[in-house]
């Protein structure tokens, strides 16, 4: 049950983040932070198809995470979900076409190892 939940969390997190990033890149840089403008932006974003799908996957990930917290400690739950780091970076390079240079790979590697160590 525990590991099934971890799988559900990681899978849906990767999908949610990639879809969200894709839609925000399409939207372009947010430059106006006045509340009215932000509200209007959010209303516009709520109609984007990928973003709706992203929220759906986030909900799956969120409820699976809540369920996991009733079975395990935060110190187990948080680190294992970090398995999504490496998968997401791979997706960022090949799906989102981001320029993932040596420093980023090294940084992500260090972060993933660091998060894994937290679980010990």
């Amino acid at each position, binding site marked *: 049950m525990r590991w099934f939940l971890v799988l559900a969390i990681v899978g849906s997190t990767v999908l949610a983040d990639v879809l969200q990033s894709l839609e925000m890149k399409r939207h372009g840089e947010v430059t106006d932070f006045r509340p009215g403008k932000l509200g209007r932006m959010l209303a516009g974003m709520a109609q984007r198809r990928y973003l709706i799908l992203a929220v759906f996957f986030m909900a799956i990930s969120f409820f699976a995470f809540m369920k996991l917290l009733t079975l395990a400690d935060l110190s187990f739950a948080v680190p294992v979900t970090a398995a999504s780091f490496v998968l997401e970076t791979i997706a960022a390079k090949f799906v989102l076409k981001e320029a993932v240079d040596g*420093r980023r790979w090294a940084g992500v590697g260090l972060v993933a190892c660091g998060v894994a160590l937290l679980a010990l």
Partner: protein
Amino acid sequence: MERLNRKTWILTALVVFTQAFGNFALNWGMKRQTREFGLSPVAYVEAIFTPWVAIGVALLIVWLLTRMMLLSWADLSFVLPVTSLGYVLSAVIGKLFFFEQISWSRWLGVSLIVAGTVLVGLTRPGTTQQETRELVAERA
């Protein structure tokens, strides 16, 4: 460029704090639930309206929105490692409020995360803006 960098760091800090404190409140609230959690969503929905879980959910909504804004100009492969400082903050919160023991391996983990964050923080936040602008122009 100067303005963009400041904006990036302010949003990153917001993302890190809301995530760490949101997760803390959620964990604290869920540990105080008395009912069984099965497959039915009713128990979860009821749990959301208990104070600590509600605070956690509110903070995580702010986390989601600030992260979305950050993703509008920064790469996913930049945002992910940099906002992982939230794990470090979670470890510190765990020590302060749950009196969790922090072993040497955990401190090593924290150091690796900080090192990774610094390394990624040195790169340019957005590398796809030009391309996406073209994509948007194409669609219009």
